[in-house]
């Protein structure tokens, strides 16, 4: 028997391996002209794994603390063998992951994969998206450079605008009234322990649900294929789709390598709380659409302070976004047009505002 078969037999005798992976063997992926979008979830997962691995490696040398954080990152970039590579991959992969997470969310939105019975998959997914942005926000501060310092200052300041709970929330985030070394320590704790813990649980739930419920079929196709089962075209997940996913993952690896080697992530200048904020400070690109929106809201709308209104509005939108599936019809033939319209608007808004925010002074 081949070595692989030996191992399988050994596992089966101890874990009931064959029964465990039986559903996986039966899993299929619907085939249609939009099937390529199904890769996005897997790529996001892959990039997350890359983050965990490179993150653990960085943990071996990184020191959290206002005195040493910047220098430890500088040490990683200059003295540690291939430290520049690990760190640059971590930074680039973070940005790519956030992008693919958004893309995955929008593709699910447009393909209406959030419909019954997959509401909880959507809920866990949106929560994961928020977590991923939290990862980005907390991780950005860790090198303790000027840009990160002031971006964190502005970001947490905006959180403080929420009525009633805003100020306590801000103090909780900052570990005090101002952004200091305590904030760095706290963000480090969030980034390497709290967020990964929550994310792991949600991710497992998300993946379990995907496994149990299978891959969703776009509504129109679902109607057609229910009426005419012989027209259904699908591909086995294992090994066919998985091999293709593997190709996508390898391409992602190549892209990461090029980005890390040709455009290494820069170090910046060590943060100095006493230096005035540089002009035109902006958050990272994935927060730009919110930031730009807040900048455009007039200082006072009616009697409400403009910024508070903006923050509350985004909070409301976030909440409704989580609950979106519950507004949708559970009949594939009668999906709601207004949700599609909303999806188009949301995509246009996020993309447009991000570009605007990038180009604005």
């Amino acid at each position, binding site marked *: 028997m081949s070595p692989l078969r030996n191992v399988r037999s050994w596992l089966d005798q101890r874990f009931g391996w064959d029964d465990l992976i039986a559903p996986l063997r039966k899993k299929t992926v619907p085939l249609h002209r939009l099937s390529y979008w199904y890769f996005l979830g897997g790529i996001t997962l892959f990039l997350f794994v890359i983050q965990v691995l490179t993150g653990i490696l960085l943990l071996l040398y990184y020191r959290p603390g206002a005195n040493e954080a910047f220098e430890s990152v*500088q040490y990683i*970039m*200059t003295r540690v063998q291939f430290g*520049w*590579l690990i760190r*640059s991959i971590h930074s680039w992969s973070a940005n790519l992951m956030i992008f693919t997470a958004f893309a995955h969310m929008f593709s699910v939105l447009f393909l209406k994969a959030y419909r019954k019975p997959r509401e909880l998959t959507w809920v866990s997914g949106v929560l994961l998206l928020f977590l991923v942005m939290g990862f980005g926000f907390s991780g950005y501060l860790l090198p303790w450079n000027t840009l990160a310092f002031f971006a964190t200052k502005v970001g947490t300041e905006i959180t403080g605008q929420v009525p009633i709970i805003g100020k306590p929330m801000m103090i909780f985030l900052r570990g005090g009234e101002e952004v200091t070394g305590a904030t760095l320590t706290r963000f480090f704790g969030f980034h390497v322990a709290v967020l990964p813990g929550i994310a792991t649980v949600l991710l497992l739930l998300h993946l379990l649900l995907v496994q149990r419920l299978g891959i969703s079929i776009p509504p129109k196709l679902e109607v057609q294929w229910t009426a005419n089962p012989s027209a259904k075209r699908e591909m086995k997940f294992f*090994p*066919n789709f998985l*091999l*293709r996913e*593997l*190709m996508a993952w*390898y*391409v992602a*690896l*190549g892209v990461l*390598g*090029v980005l890390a*080697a*040709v*455009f*290494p*992530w*820069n*170090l910046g200048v060590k943060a100095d709380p006493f230096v005035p904020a540089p002009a035109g400070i902006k958050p990272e690109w994935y927060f730009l659409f919110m930031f730009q929106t807040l900048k455009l809201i007039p200082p006072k709308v009616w009697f409400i302070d403009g910024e508070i209104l903006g923050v509350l509005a985004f909070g409301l939108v976030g909440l409704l976004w989580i609950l979106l599936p519950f507004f949708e019809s559970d009949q594939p033939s009668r999906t709601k047009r207004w949700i599609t319209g909303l999806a188009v608007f949301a995509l246009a808004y996020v993309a447009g505002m991000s570009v605007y925010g990038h180009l604005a002074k």
Partner: protein
Amino acid sequence: MAILQNKCWLFSAVRQVGLAGFVVLAACLGFGQTTNSCLDCHSALPDPLGVSQEKFSQDIHAQKGLTCASCHGGDATSDDPDKAMSRKAGWKGKIDRKQIPQLCGSCHSDPAYIRQFNPSLRTDQLGQYRTSVHGKRFAAGDTKVAVCTDCHSVHDLRAPSDPRSTVNPVNVANTCSRCHADASYMKGYPIPTDQFAKYSTSVHHQALAVRGDLSAPTCTTCHGNHGAAPPGVDKVQNVCSNCHAFQAQMYEKSTHKKAFDAASLPGCVVCHGNHGIGHPSDAYLGTGPEAVCMRCHTPGDRCDQARVGLQGGLSRLDEAIKGADQILRVAESSGMEVSEARLGQDQARDSLTKARVTIHSFRTDLVDQDIQAGLKIASKNLQAGKGAMVERNQRRVGLGISLIAIGIVLVGLRLYIKKIES
């Protein structure tokens, strides 16, 4: 007439009570201030008799409790113009220009008096003034020269530390230029009137007025303020040496000092100018329009040859530093970390600055020492930059290898997929 007398008595009684009441009222209104009734009328009068309350409140004398009468005499407490401006009360009227230094000096040269207000304020201004060009001409009867109020202003005289004061360092040049840049006013005096125009183009002006560096020199720094006079041809380098100590030390020991003194040439000014001192450049040592050496020296002589050596050394070091900067810039923009080498470049630049200072010794051997030190540092940084570029290229090679491996896997996967699906 008894009735009239009674009425007169009543009248004067009423007037006394009214006046007393008014005085009490005025005292209450002027709470905390010395009564200065002069401004009641004079604040409403047009120039030249007008002094507004607002203007006078800026004056440091007013803030210290002095009144108009302190200088002009008279009675500042009285509302009656006749009483207030009575000669018997010592009223002087408009102070004649010829009296001004004496008048100001009557307090400001009295240490015991000034000590009551500001114990650390100097009291030698009048004495200094008498030694100045202004003071000497004034004593000889020239009333066009500056007296105290011309520079310090009057009625809104501010302390020199006040940025709005006419004698605050940032404003001094403007104050002096009011006369010294006025060609028609200065007609009849044998001095030029282009000093302010020249100074405005200088590095010192740039530092002081534009950058706000209060340590930069203005007219009074070199000429003195109360004892204002040009430093004297053979003492110029003493003045410059107060800040430019190293250059002056070098110059003192150099051959140029003896030569310039013998020819009654004003030291530093010969090459650098006095008012329009620009940023010196290595071109001073050249043969172009900015050349200073060649104004005196003969082409081809021993000194000219030394000049060539000096200029050559400086430009060699400058080139070396620029070259290292260039490669470090490229390395940095490719993502290489070169902060240590960049710090080393600062050291190299320090060497170049030092070499440029040593020029003032006019000795090629001394300058060469600094040049060599700088070249060593610059070359080390150049090597660091080259090393960074080598590493950068190695990274790209490594990337290429891994991309090839990835490519092979992709091809393999494609083939495998094709195979199992055929």
